[in-house]
């Protein structure tokens, strides 16, 4: 059978997709809970006020699919200011290709009006340098662009901005 094509999420996805619990991968009072905050920018450097960000990640032990760990976050609204915030815990390391271990990372889908399909990126953590240095996916990214995949520590959590285009364009992946 043949694939169904992708179409844009917009406009007015906020009728159907975001929900109040969406940004909470874990409850706010969970041990180790942290906030990943960012903004989605277009090629003119303007915040995209109708964008949607989804995240998928391992639990802190590097496991997937445990009943008590949702692993999924969805944040975004329309008529917002382009910012998103996910409440989560830092994932553990998980296996990569050919017996490697991957540094803690979160898979991200970016959707918006004006995007005919999602863009896929990953959040890595700037304070995991040792693990990042051994990560096979980061190693495949041109060195000068790796920083676009790093969430930077800030009070209360991390900052991770997404640039769809232009200077500092985020690395997006073909999956």
């Amino acid at each position, binding site marked *: 059978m043949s694939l169904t*094509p992708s*179409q*844009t999420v917009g*406009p*007015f996805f906020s*009728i159907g997709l975001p929900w109040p619990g969406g940004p909470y991968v874990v409850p706010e009072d969970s041990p180790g809970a942290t906030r990943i905050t960012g903004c989605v920018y277009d090629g*003119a450097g303007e915040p995209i006020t109708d964008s949607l960000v989804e995240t*998928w990640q391992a639990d802190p032990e590097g496991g997937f699919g445990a009943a008590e760990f949702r692993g999924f976050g969805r944040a975004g609204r329309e008529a917002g200011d382009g910012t998103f915030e996910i409440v989560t815990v830092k994932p553990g390391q998980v296996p990569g290709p050919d017996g490697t271990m991957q540094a803690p990372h979160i898979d991200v889908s970016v959707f918006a009006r004006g*995007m005919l399909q999602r863009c896929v990126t990953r959040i890595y953590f700037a304070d995991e340098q040792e693990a990042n240095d051994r990560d096979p996916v980061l190693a495949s990214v041109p060195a000068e662009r790796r920083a676009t995949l790093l969430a930077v520590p800030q009070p209360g959590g991390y900052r991770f901005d997404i640039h769809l*285009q232009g200077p500092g364009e985020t690395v997006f992946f073909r999956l």
Partner: protein
Amino acid sequence: MRRYAPEPEGTHPPLDYPPYRSTELRHPKQPLVYLPQTITELTGPQLGRERVLGEHDHDLTRQHEGEPIGERIIVSGRVLDTAGKPLRGTLVEIWQANSAGRYRHVGDRWPAPLDPNFSGAGRCLTDDEGRYQFVTIKPGPYPWGNHHNAWRPAHIHFSLLGQAFAQRLVTQMYFPGDPLFEYDPIFNSVPDPAARARMVSHFSLEDTIPDWAQAYSFDIVLRGPDQTVFEEEH
């Protein structure tokens, strides 16, 4: 864990598609980097219980005091992968304009009436055969600002989580025979005409309920495992 087959050229629209003007500043210009499918991409969220809560989540005509105005329809189909395997218990989320082509959203300012009895959002989980079903109102077409006299063909937005991050899909379902197809850059952004046709639902007399509602059928096919030797064409 089995990897997912590559997506064939021409199925998904390019991110850079000038006829749809808003793509201009919203597409990456740097080459995409190959991401091997690891456990993160081969697993995915199971959101069922958190998102499908109410008895009328799948029935958009019964979410308010009264019935919405418009043509009552049943929209149903199966969610499968390219190997034909039904995807069970997967979340299907939809949203749409009302019968006048107006969305219940502060940003939608075109002067068509809102319907106090229609919110336009639905959710359900597929059953053991991958089947889903919604009861709703046929949405109307509406104008948009992309170019002079631009109108979107009537459509229902669909969001599928699938069973893995790699299967995630957001699409739109269209209605057969819409005269607006040839003028719509979003519909025509899909390069392969056969793939485009897969976004168009079929009228189903079989599922139509006499004296109550017409039915449209719409199967959704997500990425399937690689190394599929015998691929059936439908």
